[in-house]
């Protein structure tokens, strides 16, 4: 019954080699832990995607900067309201097929699926705000120093209990 996910089934030679090298560079660290404060059916849940998704009305992620300097990625973040659909947003991550979000935002940011689980009372509430960042950051320091604390503050203001992260 138990099956193990193969991390490399869909990944080509060069990327696979890169990822394996990156894994070897890491050492185990102490793991932070916050228990879920109440049953899931009473919790407020938010999503964070690293697909660099932004509302079309919002500031785009900086693709030009990465084209000029391929070692760089935009460290900023965007807020996406719970009501957003694929028609309201664009995907700016230069390593991800942007048509996926045009076809169905839920592949990467499952807002509609989460709202349905709220309607079915499987979770307490969907947060009003959700978040997206650029996943390709070889130097994540700026994002960790500026964007993540801002997201944390926003989540605190909205009294979020649980967060699902969806890397891209």
């Amino acid at each position, binding site marked *: 019954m138990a099956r193990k996910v193969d991390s490399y089934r869909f990944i080509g030679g060069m990327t696979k080699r890169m990822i394996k090298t990156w894994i070897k*560079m890491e050492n185990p660290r102490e793991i932070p832990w916050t228990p879920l404060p109440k049953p899931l059916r009473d919790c407020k849940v938010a999503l964070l995607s690293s697909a660099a998704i932004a509302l079309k009305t919002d500031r785009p992620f900086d693709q030009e900067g990465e084209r000029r300097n391929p070692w760089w990625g935009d460290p900023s973040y965007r807020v996406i309201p719970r009501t957003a659909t694929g028609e309201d947003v664009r995907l700016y991550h230069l390593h991800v097929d942007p048509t996926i979000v045009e076809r169905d935002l839920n592949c990467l940011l499952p807002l509609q699926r989460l709202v349905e689980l709220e309607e079915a009372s499987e979770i307490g509430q969907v947060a009003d705000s959700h978040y997206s960042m650029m996943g*390709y950051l070889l130097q994540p320091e700026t994002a960790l120093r500026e964007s*993540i604390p801002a997201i944390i503050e926003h989540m605190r203001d909205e009294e979020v209990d649980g967060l699902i*992260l*969806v890397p891209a």
Partner: protein
Amino acid sequence: MGLAQREIEAAGFSTIILSSIPDLTASVSVPRLAAIEYPLGYTLGRPNDVQDQTAVLRAVLQALEAMETPGEVVHLPFEWSGPEKPKPPEGHEPPPIVGHVQRHPLQLRRLLTRDVPQD
């Protein structure tokens, strides 16, 4: 993304990450990890496959509630039923770093060791 998760968990939120490269995600010691064998970009499933997306999301939420040990990993049992190599549309621009390394092969070593040139 795993580093972001650690910061947010440490700030007092319960977090879980849904990763299709769990070996990489686990290497930075994340609190809760749900692994899925789906292609990059299709983490929740195929476009408009509502039933599958819901099942994946529900499994992640249940893991968020059930896990009790820091660093716990669940391997989700979902089978990818789309194309084996989903391709971006014709003419799609490759990532800038790919072209850069092709033009400057000696830079590959820097990418592998994340030794980013400082300017």
